[in-house]
């Protein structure tokens, strides 16, 4: 297979898809460089799954184009270049985990050895177990194994660690690190924002069918100013706090207040001057969750 086409990575241009009056995906542009690990974040209904479906050739776009390693998604799938883990991806009954993976491996031109897949998906001990006797997290690892067995250049994972416990999740990402070290391209959708922050080279935020932010997790944090001020302030009024300089968002929970700031120094000085009763003050960096809320609420308003 020519390296030049693998180097083309994934190229999505002006991708659009409507279901009736609903614009599920409204003009998405996205480039993924070969070897990159990209997280796709967004609230339910943001258009993530529809975008992934079009990337995989399961859904036909109304307009726009998708190229995977310089070819159509269908061709990329036929060439065994793509492995995908769908959220709803069902397992069949009356087979053991090993038999299921042997079956899947037989469908690809250059599959990964089944023993290798079992090890990477942390399934070696469960190889002989029937698929109907697996816990939710174990079934999720089998879905991951099904995505791996193609030995794909592009891995597409829709909420890969859903239903996994903390330990499984840690092992899952450790396994992913090994895989991506070999130069694979990964696109994953997740609800665990810390996963995107920790494991992705780049975070793409979607809302209302469009990409609202695209960059390294650190850059996404910078977009919203990067700092929060927390304090205890009984009887605080949102309007007073919003009027403070450098404050972009205010949350009040009982006696606790939380200010999202572009300039936390100015905000803090003004807060202390205007509200001498404020105590237990903490200043911290904004996490990705904040970036997420700020950006997506802005786009849907």
């Amino acid at each position, binding site marked *: 297979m020519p390296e030049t086409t693998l180097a083309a990575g994934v190229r999505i241009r002006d991708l659009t898809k409507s279901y009736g009056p609903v614009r599920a995906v409204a003009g998405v542009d996205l480039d993924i460089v070969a070897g990159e690990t990209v997280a796709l974040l967004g609230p339910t209904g943001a258009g993530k799954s529809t975008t992934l479906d079009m990337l*995989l*050739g*399961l*859904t*036909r776009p109304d307009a726009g184009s998708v190229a995977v390693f310089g070819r159509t998604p269908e061709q990329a*799938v*036929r*060439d*065994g270049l*793509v*492995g*995908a883990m*769908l959220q*709803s*991806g*069902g*397992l*069949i*009954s*009356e*087979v053991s985990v090993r*038999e299921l993976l*042997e*079956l*899947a*491996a*037989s*469908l*690809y*031109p250059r599959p990964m050895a089944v023993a290798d897949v079992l090890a990477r998906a942390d399934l070696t001990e469960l190889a002989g177990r029937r698929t109907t006797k697996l816990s939710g997290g174990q079934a999720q690892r089998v879905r991951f194994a*099904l995505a791996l067995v*193609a030995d794909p250049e592009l891995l597409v994972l829709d909420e890969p660690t859903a239903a996994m416990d903390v330990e499984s999740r840690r092992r899952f990402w450790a396994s992913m690190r090994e895989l991506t070290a070999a130069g694979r391209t990964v696109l994953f959708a997740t609800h665990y924002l810390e996963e995107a922050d920790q494991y992705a080279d780049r975070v793409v935020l979607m809302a209302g069918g469009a990409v609202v932010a695209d960059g390294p997790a650190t850059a996404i944090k910078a977009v919203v100013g990067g700092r929060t001020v927390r304090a205890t302030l009984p009887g605080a009024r949102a309007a007073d706090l919003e009027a403070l300089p450098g404050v972009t968002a205010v949350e009040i929970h009982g006696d606790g207040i939380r200010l999202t700031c572009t300039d936390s120094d100015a905000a803090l000085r003004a807060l202390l001057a205007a509200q001498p009763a404020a105590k237990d003050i903490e200043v911290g960096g904004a996490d990705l969750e904040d970036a997420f809320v700020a950006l997506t609420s802005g786009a849907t308003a």
Partner: protein
Amino acid sequence: MNATYLRTEVRRTLRAPRYFIFVIGMPLGLFLLFASLYGQGTQDGISGTAWLMVSMSVFGAMGAAVSIGGRIAGERQAGWTRQLRLTPMPGWTYVAAKAVTALLVAVPALVLVYAVGALAEGVRLPASTWAEAAGWSLLALAPFVALGIWLGHRLTNDVLGPLSGALFTVLGILGGVWFPVDQLPSALAGVARALPSYWLAQAGREPLAGTWIGWHGLSVLAVWTAGFTLLAARAYRRDTARN
């Protein structure tokens, strides 16, 4: 279609409890029961016992063919067919593998009933006749395979289960699988001779009398097969359309 895929499909079917109950157990049990009750005399030029033996063997084979519908419906619901679309396997292979599997797992259903007929019920036939009966039964199973594929792509499993059970029973009774059609009212006997189940049962029995179902029987089976195949193809296309 690769060998691993087909082997796994066959193995899965044989492991399902439903297979043992409806395809193997019930036909065998019913054959033993009916043979002791109605095994005397002759029917359609063969002994009553042989007649019943073929009836119950095709009854099991019919079960094997129609049950693939339930598997298809279940695998569609579970999202497995969607997962398969993310592999290089061409879509038609899935359906073809199901059809071949149905025929393969019908073989034990036929052979076991024959074996009981030969060993316990004293049915004596030349080896070539056994082979002809089995071969014709499998050939005549074609409309039921297509029917199963059609229903599997149209219905969900909870509808399909009871519906195929009912359909199966009606086709069995009206088609003279359970008792000779000449015992039916004459209007119904006419209907029977237009049904695929009638010609399936006859296809298995005629070789025992040294004959075959003839061009007429073959045509009826071909028309049903073509009809169900058309419906199955349409349902398959609709089910797998990228929208």
